[in-house]
């Protein structure tokens, strides 16, 4: 085993401790990937996915995504370990709600660093081993808030819209090297991020959704699975909306 090169593909997932990130890590492992993930805190669910006999299968690091140097070191360690990165999923993000004029500049800055600067820096670092091998997929988790205006989430929506701009620009930039870049824009799905949505708002969302329910992590997961598979090998530079028809 030790002198044969590990042929398993490698996925980097930001924010793998909870919610969609945890589901993505689980799914990539089930698909035979080695996974590198980080978050500020580990969860019991993520720890349970570790394979003690083969520690290289899943690596978690404690990294605050607002620390650019720590993010850089995280990717450098992943590349040293595996010599390749096949998939990057820019999943980590923080929710930010409130009228703009009532939100402090420091809060805005922190949210932009996690929701925009972090995915840009991760793309910059992970694209290098992808360029070297001339293959790879970057998936950016956007939101329907990038596509439709909504009160209280202007800054969150601005960061997500910027991420879609990154998707389009990078798709052109690295397409000739065989690398695809896509965005997935989910509607509301159940996770810690949406735990604060009250019953009345929930009913309103369901009423406005043609498919008549909130999303689930699995709905988004299936689309990421498709986009990172050979079935999607001619899709790049697009934002795929997964919202039960909410924005149609």
């Amino acid at each position, binding site marked *: 085993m030790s002198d044969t090169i590990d042929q398993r593909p490698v996925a980097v997932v930001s924010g793998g401790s909870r919610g969609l990130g945890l589901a993505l890590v689980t799914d990539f492992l089930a698909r035979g990937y080695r996974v590198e993930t980080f978050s500020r805190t580990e969860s019991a669910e993520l720890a349970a996915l570790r394979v003690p006999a083969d520690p290289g299968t899943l690596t978690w690091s404690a990294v605050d995504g607002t620390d650019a140097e720590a993010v850089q070191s995280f990717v450098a360690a992943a*590349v*040293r370990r595996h*010599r390749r990165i096949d998939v990057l999923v820019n999943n980590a993000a923080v929710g930010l709600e409130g009228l703009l004029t009532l939100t402090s500049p420091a809060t805005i800055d922190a949210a932009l660093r996690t929701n925009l600067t972090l995915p840009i820096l991760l793309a910059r670092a992970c*694209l*290098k*081993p992808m*360029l*070297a091998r*001339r293959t790879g997929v970057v998936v950016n988790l956007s939101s329907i808030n990038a596509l439709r205006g909504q009160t209280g989430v202007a800054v969150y929506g601005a960061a997500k819209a910027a991420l879609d701009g990154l998707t389009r620009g990078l798709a052109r*930039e*690295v397409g*000739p*090297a065989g690398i695809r870049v896509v965005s997935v824009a989910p509607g509301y799905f159940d996770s810690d991020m949406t735990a604060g949505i009250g019953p009345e708002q929930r009913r309103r969302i369901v009423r406005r959704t043609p498919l008549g329910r909130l999303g689930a992590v699995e709905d988004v997961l299936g689309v990421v699975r498709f986009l990172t598979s050979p079935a999607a090998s001619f899709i790049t530079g697009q934002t795929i909306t997964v919202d039960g028809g909410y924005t149609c």
Partner: protein
Amino acid sequence: MRNGSVIRMNRRETVMTALLEIVNEVAGPVDHLDEDQSLVDQLGLESLHLARLVAVLEMELDTDPFTAEVPITSVRTVGDLLRAYDPVVRAPLGDPA
């Protein structure tokens, strides 16, 4: 000191090998490059080729001189590239465009 010059020579060779591989792919079979050859105008490299070259070299040498020290725009010739990766001589490079 001796050890240092061996490292320099090895690095030079690594950079040359990686460059030759990409030039071969872009311009057809070439087995020798001159230091004064222009990467873009004479060898036909595009910016994405340079990005790939820098990525390959970062994996091999664990360093990317263009992250901080050297602007990539100052690399015009084969010699500029070799100097950018030289642990001793990081200058002088041509003027940025």
